[in-house]
């Protein structure tokens, strides 16, 4: 079976570095895409969302990234993200609390657009984390 080399990197964490993988699903700003061996070169912005990768001969691994980029070049795929969390590491209760808090902040009046957007993103991230975290349990 064909494989490609996969790295998933964050500034404070190296999840994978040049490991052989058979498939990768990431969420770009335009939607979810799957990368298989032989994919055309691609540079994309990643939205907060899930990723799934399948290392050669192993079970698929699911996780969440907050934001970042994906770079597909010939047969090497690199994901650079701000933060990476694997599904089993997600604390669903904490995500729930974060969602609640951010939602409360959103209902408060009189914030500028930027802060509003910030809390919106927070809610979005919290929801995604709950979804992914809930699935794996």
């Amino acid at each position, binding site marked *: 079976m064909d494989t490609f080399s996969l790295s998933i990197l964050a500034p*404070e*964490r190296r999840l994978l570095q040049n490991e052989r993988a058979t498939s990768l699903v990431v969420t770009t700003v335009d939607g979810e895409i799957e990368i298989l061996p032989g994919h055309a*070169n*691609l540079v994309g*912005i990643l939205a907060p969302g899930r990723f799934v990768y399948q290392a050669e001969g192993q079970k698929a691994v699911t996780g969440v990234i907050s934001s970042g*980029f994906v*770079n597909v070049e010939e047969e090497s795929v690199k994901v*650079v993200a*701000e933060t990476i969390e694997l599904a089993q590491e997600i604390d669903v209760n904490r995500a729930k609390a974060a969602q609640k808090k951010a939602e409360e902040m959103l209902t408060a009046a009189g914030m500028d657009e930027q802060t509003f957007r910030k809390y919106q993103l927070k809610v979005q991230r919290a929801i995604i984390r709950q979804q992914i975290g809930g699935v794996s349990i």
Partner: protein
Amino acid sequence: MASIKDLKKRISSVKNTQQTTKAMKMVSAAKLRRAQETILSQRPYAGEIAKLMSILSGQGASEDTITNAAPVSLLIVVSSDRGLCAGYNSSVIKAATNYIAEKTAAGKAVKCIFVGKKAYEILRGRMKLDLVHYEEFGPKIVFKKATELSKKALELYEKGEVNEVSIVFNEFQNAISQVIRTDRILPLEASAAAASEGEAQKLIHELTLYEPDKSTIYAALKNKYFVVQIFKALLEAQASEHGARMSAMENATKNAGDMIKKLTLLYNKQRQASITKELLEIIAGSESQKTA
């Protein structure tokens, strides 16, 4: 000449100092190792961001320079919160002073962001600073700190209040040597890597798909690149600080050892002298009795 009692006191006090410096050296060594690990673990990430930058800047997603910005420079000064690390902070202070003097001579104003107590406290007393932001270096550098710092700098840059951003910090070479650096991080220099790119490479990059499109990616990437550079500088500074403190404390321990040796010699000499003196007195006493 100091009395025997005084000498004894001094020896024990130097011994105490030596123990402190020894302990500090050990702590710094452990922290240094951890700081080095962090540098190593962020390197692939930083490398990848830099590579993406070169791909995109070679692709005509070029720099949108802010032309009507005020002729003001922003300087980020990275020093430590604590002393006892030899020339670490003074070299930062010197470099920052030079930078400010140079810019002022060229007719530019300088705004400052300080990270770390030492440089801030000294420079504040020495000259009038146009301070934008000050924060402590903190016990450990996390990526979030770099993100927040860069946000502050970018905000000024995008508003056109400053037209360049530089950072002065100690670059980590190895445990005993740190090199002071003043790097300009904004506006971005046209990437040299992109310019020297071969034809084949160029073609590959032209065939690359972009999602959503080049300029959006470039805009997002540019900010990330900026954060990464600040993060890198902070990490280098962190490692340098521990390295500098480690070697300073090692020297201090050695010096204390030398001093103890000298003092002990002096102490023994004096002790011997007093014994000899007493003996002489006794002998002289018994001699005089004999003759009597």
